[in-house]
């Protein structure tokens, strides 16, 4: 049946732009309906396309948790490491092969609780890593326990009467520790997130992008905040874009305003630059640059 107005299009022409970045043999993935992690992966894939990053030299490292599963779904050299230790693993990768573009893709609990120490030291050292922290305000994979980012009064499985601990303001934390690029978006801001990730790829040094995401099964459900779609509508309604806002003022509450935007974009020499400079200065001729570590 032909139709002169609508051209017949071969199915093979019409490709999902994200598909080349996915391990399609493992999709559908395990994330819940309405979970935002997959949405962040779309933004990540778009950023890779836009910034024309050489995929061969890109490595992705994640920790444990729902966001940690990203490593298993992207078609890149990907490492699913131990809980909290994606950043030191990524540090080792980057130092052994400085040509790699190393992305750490992990969750709020993994990066700021058990991994907190490594987060602040990598930021302090300004290791050239791009950290995408999907913050769903909870420990999702293990069933909804309190995370350092869970806002006051939230109900979780380990705070069944409501969280009373103050929670982390992650942009503030990493800025204080020394990160050169700090941004926050949520899963509603798909294009802005992609743009931030592209910008981070252009930066040399420790870049941190926080993405607030729904966890409809645990965080939203336990706190009667609706489902994933309700949360996305809340993000749309209550987000305020304030580029350059002081990070001390961007703390989160359960239902309040969410300040998003690019908060920090500064320049500091990264770890490897400092290291080489120091050795060149102290050792002069005796300094031997690290050769390509190909030990085969």
């Amino acid at each position, binding site marked *: 049946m032909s139709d002169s107005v*609508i051209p017949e299009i071969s199915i093979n*022409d*019409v490709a*999902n*732009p994200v598909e080349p970045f996915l391990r*399609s043999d493992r*999709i559908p993935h395990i994330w819940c309906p309405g979970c935002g992690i997959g*949405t962040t992966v*779309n933004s990540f894939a778009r950023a890779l396309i836009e910034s024309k990053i050489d995929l061969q030299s890109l490595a992705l490292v994640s920790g444990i948790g729902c966001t940690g599963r990203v490593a298993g779904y992207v078609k890149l050299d990907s490492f699913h490491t131990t809980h909290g230790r994606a950043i030191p693993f990524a540090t080792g990768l980057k130092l052994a092969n400085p040509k790699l573009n190393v992305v750490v893709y992990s969750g709020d609990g993994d990066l700021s609780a058990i991994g907190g120490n490594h987060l602040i030291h990598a930021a302090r050292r300004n290791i050239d890593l791009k950290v995408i922290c999907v913050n769903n305000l909870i420990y999702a994979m293990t069933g909804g326990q309190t995370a350092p980012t869970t806002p006051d009064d939230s109900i979780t499985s380990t705070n069944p009467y409501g969280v009373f601990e103050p929670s982390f303001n992650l942009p503030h934390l990493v800025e204080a520790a020394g990160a050169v690029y700090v941004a926050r978006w949520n899963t509603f801001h798909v294009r802005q997130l*992609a743009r931030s990730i592209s910008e981070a790829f252009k930066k040399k040094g420790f870049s941190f992008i926080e993405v607030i995401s729904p966890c409809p099964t645990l965080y939203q459900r336990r706190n009667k905040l609706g489902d994933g779609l309700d949360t996305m509508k809340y993000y749309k309604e209550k987000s305020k874009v304030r580029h350059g806002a002081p990070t001390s003022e961007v703390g989160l509450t359960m239902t309040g305003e969410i300040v998003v935007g690019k908060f920090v974009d500064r320049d500091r020499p990264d770890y490897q630059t400092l290291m080489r400079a120091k050795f060149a200065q102290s050792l002069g001729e005796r300094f031997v640059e690290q050769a390509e570590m190909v030990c085969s």
Partner: protein
Amino acid sequence: MKTRFPGHVRVLTYVRDSCHIQLRHHKAIMTSRFRGVFYRPERGDPVAKGRVSVVVERCKACGFCVEFCPSHVLALSSAFNSKGYHPPHVVHPEKCSGCDLCGMFCPDFAIYATKVTPAGGGNK
């Protein structure tokens, strides 16, 4: 492989076959329950700038694409995929601009839109 049904929605099921993706029509869904699939433009009708493709088996009916499509092209259908979710379908194909916001929002990589070039051209 060409579709037997002209129209602006390609309803696809991805069947896993080792590393290759094979595309097959999912006959159970291609029935008249699916409103809007078989739109055939008449002379003088506006021609859509974009085309939506839905990967039915991946959809978890979160509703993001329906809600955030700026042109309100989509709605959740009454059909089911094998997991029991209602995938979206196109109700206003002529309004699709091919912006692919649906694709960017979809957490399940289950939908995407591509820009369409007019008669005679292929598109990516």
